[in-house]
C-alpha cells in the first residue's frame, strides 16, 4: 500500500514553463502496490517541452514523452487543437527507493529541467513471509577493504556459506536482486502487455525510460503493481537461496543460515534487507588512507584500475566520493547493521569474529571462532596471495604513513575526516592499532 503524504506544485512564474500540473491523487490518497502512476501535462513558455523527468534526489528514475492528447488543457490555455500532445503518463517503481521517497517532476525545456511538482510518498515494505531458507548476509563495502578475506573467513562458519571468494566470487544474490528490479518494474511488465519488440536473444527489459501506458483494467493493474512484484521477489530470492543451499551441500554444511556476498553501496542492500526479514548487514570499513595506499599498490601492480588515475593524488577525490557514499548508507542503517573494521578483523580476529557471530545469532563460542580462523588461515590459496598488496596484515594497517607522501596527508585527512570520525572516532583507535601490531593475522590488503 502506498500513501501519498503530500503533493506540492511550485510556482512557475518566470520559468521556462507556461503551465504544468500533475493529475496524481492529492495528499492522503492510498494506492495499491509498489509503483505509482504519475500523469499530467506541461506547456513551455516558448518552444517545446522535450520530455518529462521524474527525479529522486539527483537521479532521474523515469523519463516520459509528451504523448497524451489533452484537449482540456489546450482549451483552457487557449491553444490550437492541432498543437502537439502536452500530456504524459508514466509509472515509477518504488522498490529501489527508500520507503518514504520524495519524487520531483520536471519538464525538460531547452535542455534544462523545470520542476513543477513534488510528491512525498510512503509505502509499506515488501516482506517475504516466510523468507527463503537461506538469508543474505549483506557485506556492504568498497574495494580494498579486506572484503574477500572477510567472505573467506566467515565462510568457514558452519552456518554461513560463501563460494570461492578468492576465485570465482559469484554474486548470485546481487544478480537476482537486479533481475527482480528489472522484472518488477512497470516498464518491464509493459514489454509483455504492449506489442513491443523484445530485445533480441540476449536481453530482456526495456530501457525503462519510455512511456508506461495506462492499464485500464483494475484486475490487471492489481496484478501488475502488487501480486506480480511479490511473486517475483519470492522467486528471485529463492533462486539465490537455492544456489547457496547447493553450495552448502557441497561444503557439507547441514544447517546453513546465511550466504555472504559483498555489495557496493547501492539500492541492493536495503532492498534485500526489506525483502528478507532474516537478512543481516555488515558494513566493512577500513581507514580510507590505507585503502588509498592499497589501491595505488594494486594499480601499480597492473591488476586493473579502481579510479581515474594511478597516483594517490589523482585518486583521493574519487575515493572520498566512494567512502562518503558508504558513510551515508551506514548512517541510514546503522541501527540494524554491524560495523566491522578491517583493522579489528586482522589484528583482533577472535573478538571481532565473536562479535560478528553474536550479531548474526549463530554459534559464537570462542571454540567456533578459533576453528573458523584456523581453517581460513590454513587454506590460503594462490588467488588469496595474489589478492594481497602488503607482505603481512600488520603492515597493511597504517601503511599509508609509509606508502603515501606526507605532502598528501593533510589533504587526505581533510577529505576523509567524516569517515574517520564516524568509523574510527574513538580516540583509542590509533593507540590500539599500534599496540596490536605484531599480533597474528591472515593477509595483507
Amino acid at each position, binding site marked *: 500500500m502506498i500513501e501519498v503524504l503530500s503533493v506540492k506544485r511550485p510556482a512557475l512564474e518566470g520559468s521556462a514553463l507556461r503551465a504544468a500540473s500533475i493529475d496524481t491523487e492529492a495528499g492522503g490518497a492510498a494506492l495499491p502496490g509498489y509503483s505509482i502512476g504519475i500523469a499530467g501535462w506541461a506547456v513551455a513558455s516558448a518552444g517545446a517541452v522535450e520530455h518529462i523527468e521524474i527525479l529522486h534526489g539527483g537521479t532521474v528514475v523515469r523519463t516520459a514523452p509528451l504523448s497524451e492528447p489533452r484537449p482540456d488543457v489546450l482549451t483552457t490555455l487557449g491553444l490550437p487543437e492541432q498543437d502537439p500532445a502536452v500530456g504524459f503518463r508514466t509509472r515509477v517503481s518504488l522498490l529501489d527507493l527508500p520507503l518514504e521517497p520524495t519524487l520531483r517532476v520536471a519538464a525538460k525545456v531547452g535542455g534544462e529541467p523545470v520542476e513543477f511538482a513534488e510528491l512525498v510518498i510512503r509505502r509499506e515494505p515488501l516482506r517475504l513471509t516466510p523468507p527463503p531458507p537461506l538469508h543474505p548476509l549483506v557485506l556492504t563495502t568498497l574495494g580494498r577493504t579486506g572484503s574477500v578475506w572477510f567472505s573467506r573467513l566467515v565462510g568457514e562458519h558452519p552456518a554461513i556459506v560463501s563460494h570461492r571468494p578468492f576465485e*570465482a566470487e559469484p554474486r548470485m544474490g546481487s544478480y537476482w536482486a*537486479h533481475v527482480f528490479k528489472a522484472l518488477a518494474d512497470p516498464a518491464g511488465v509493459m514489454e509483455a502487455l504492449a506489442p513491443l519488440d523484445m530485445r533480441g*536473444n*540476449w536481453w530482456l527489459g*526495456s530501457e525503462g525510460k519510455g512511456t508506461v501506458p495506462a492499464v485500464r483494467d483494475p484486475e*490487471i493493474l492489481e496484478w501488475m503493481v502488487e501480486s506480480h512484484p511479490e*511473486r517475483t521477489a519470492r522467486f528471485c530470492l529463492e533462486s539465490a537461496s537455492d544456489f547457496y543451499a547447493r553450495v552448502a551441500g557441497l561444503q557439507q554444511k547441514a544447517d546453513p543460515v546465511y550466504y555472504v556476498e559483498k555489495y557496493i553501496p*547501492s539500492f541492493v542492500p536495503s532492498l534485500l534487507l526489506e525483502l528478507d526479514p532474516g537478512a543481516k548487514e555488515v558494513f566493512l570499513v577500513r581507514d580510507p588512507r590505507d585503502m588509498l595506499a592499497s589501491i595505488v599498490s594494486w594499480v601499480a601492480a597492473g591488476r586493473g584500475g579502481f579510479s581515474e588515475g594511478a597516483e594517490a593524488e589523482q585518486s583521493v577525490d574519487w575515493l572520498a566520493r566512494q567512502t562518503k557514499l558508504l558513510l551515508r548508507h551506514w548512517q541510514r542503517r546503522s541501527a540494524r547493521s554491524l560495523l566491522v573494521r578491517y583493522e579489528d578483523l586482522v589484528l583482533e580476529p577472535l573478538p571481532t569474529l565473536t562479535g560478528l557471530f553474536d550479531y548474526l545469532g549463530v554459534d559464537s563460542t570462542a571454540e567456533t571462532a578459533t576453528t573458523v580462523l584456523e581453517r581460513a588461515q590454513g587454506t590460503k590459496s594462490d588467488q588469496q596471495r595474489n589478492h594481497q598488496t602488503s607482505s603481512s596484515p600488520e603492515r597493511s594497517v597504517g601503511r599509508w604513513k609509509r606508502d603515501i607522501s606526507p605532502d598528501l596527508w593533510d589533504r587526505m585527512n581533510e577529505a576523509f575526516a567524516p569517515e574517520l570520525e564516524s568509523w574510527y572516532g574513538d580516540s583509542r583507535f590509533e593507540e590500539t592499532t599500534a599496540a596490536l601490531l605484531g599480533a597474528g593475522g591472515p593477509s595483507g590488503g
Partner: protein
Amino acid sequence: MAARRRARVRDGEELIRIDASMTPTAELLNATVTSVEVDALPEGISLGLSSPRPGSRGVLPFAFLLEGFLAAEADVVDHLEVRFGQRKLREVPVGPVVEMGDELAETGGKGLRVSRFSALVGTVRLPRSFKLNLRVVLASNERLHLCEIAGTRAALSLPAGTTPRLSPLMVTSLGRTGTTWLMRLLSEHPELVMNARYPFEARLQRYWVHWLQIMAEPANHRESSHPETFPTQHWSVGANPFFTAEVAKEDPALAQQLSGEHVIALAGFAHQATETYYLSCMTRFGHPNARFFVEKHVPDMTPRLVWELYPGAKEIILVRDPRDMLASILAFNEKRGSSGFGRDRVETDTDFVRQLASGVSGLMQNWRSRREQAHLLRYEDLLTAPEKTLRETFEYVGIDASADMVQRVLRQASAPDAALAFHMTSRDQGASIGRWKRDLRADVQALCSEEFGPALAEFGYEG
C-alpha cells in the same frame, strides 16, 4: 588474407596435453552428443576440441561445455560462433595462450598462435535434437566452418506437480493474415481468455518464454550480462554472468543445478507469471470458465517450447495467400504512413518480397514440423465459410463447437468496432481475398509466384 600454413590437428588429444587439468570434469560437461564432425578445416586453422566428444553423455541437461584450442597465425582469429541453422546461437571468445614452437612442429604448426576457448553452450533455445555449426570468425570478418556438433538435450517441463489451470492456445502466424479478426472471434468464446482489447497483442507467454530462454543461458559475457557491469544495467536482464565454464568445471554439481533443476524452476516461474496474469483476465473479461488462454505467436522457437512445457497446448497455424499478405501490408503502411512489417529494413518491394518469403517459409516449416498436433486455418476459409471453419477450429481445441456457440461468437464479434475498422485495409472482408490481382504490379506478382511457390502449394493456393 595472407597465405596460411597448413597445420591441422584432427583430434583434440594432441592439444589437450597443454592443459591436462581441463579434461576430467570437461568430460562430464558434454551434452549427450551423438557426433562431432571435424573435417575440411580451413587452410591454416587447426582445431583441438576436448569437449564435446562424440558419443559422450554429459551431466548438464540444458548446456554443454565447448572447450578446446585453436591454432592459427597470430591475430588471425577474432572469435568463434556457434550457429543453429541460419541463426547465431552465441559467440565464444578465444584467449591467447601461447605462441607455439616445437610442440606443434610434428604437425607443421610451429610458429602458430594457439588460443584457448571455453564456454558453456545453452541448449534450451534448441530443439531436443540439434545440429550446431562451429565457425571461426577471422579478424577480417570472414567466417569459416570448423565442425558440426550433433546432440540431444533433456526434455523441458514444468516442475513436478504443476497442474496448469489454463492451457495455451497459440495463434501462430505472420502479420496481415487476419490474426486480429481471428483473435476477435476467439475472444467471444467463454472457454477462451485473452486480453480482449484491440490489438489483442498482450503476449505474456511469449514474454515469459523469452525470459526463460535468456535466464536459462549460461554466462555470455561477450553478448549478455557481464559480472562487472550488470549492476549498472538497471533496466535489462541478461544471462546469469556467474554460470561460467570455470564454475562448471570446478563444481559440476553446481552446474548441474544451474543447468537442470534451476531451469525447471525458471520454467515454473514463467508459467506462474503467465497464468496469474490470465487468471486476472478471466475476472476482468468475464470468462470464469475459460480453459485456454490465447496469444498471437510468430513462427520462431517459442511455440516449440510452449508445446514442450504444456502437453495440453493447442496451436492454430493461420495462413493467408502470401500475395494478399503483401498487398495488405503495403496498403496498411500507406494508410498509416509507416514502414511496418519489416518494410523499413529493405530498399525495394522486390527485396521485401524476398524477406517476406523467408517468413512464409518459416511458417511453413512450423506447420510441417507440427502438422500432427496443430490446426491449419486459412484466412480465406474463415471469411468465406466462417461457421464451418470456426466449428472445426473449436472442435480441434476441444471447446464447445455447437452451432449455437459458433453463431453466438460470430454475432458478438461482428458488432461494429471502430478499432477493427481502422485495422482493415479493404472496403470489406470479401474484397481482401485475391486483392493481389488488383493491387500488385505484374512484375511483383511474377516474383511472388517464384518466391512463395512452395508455400502456395503447401497451403493450397493457386500458383
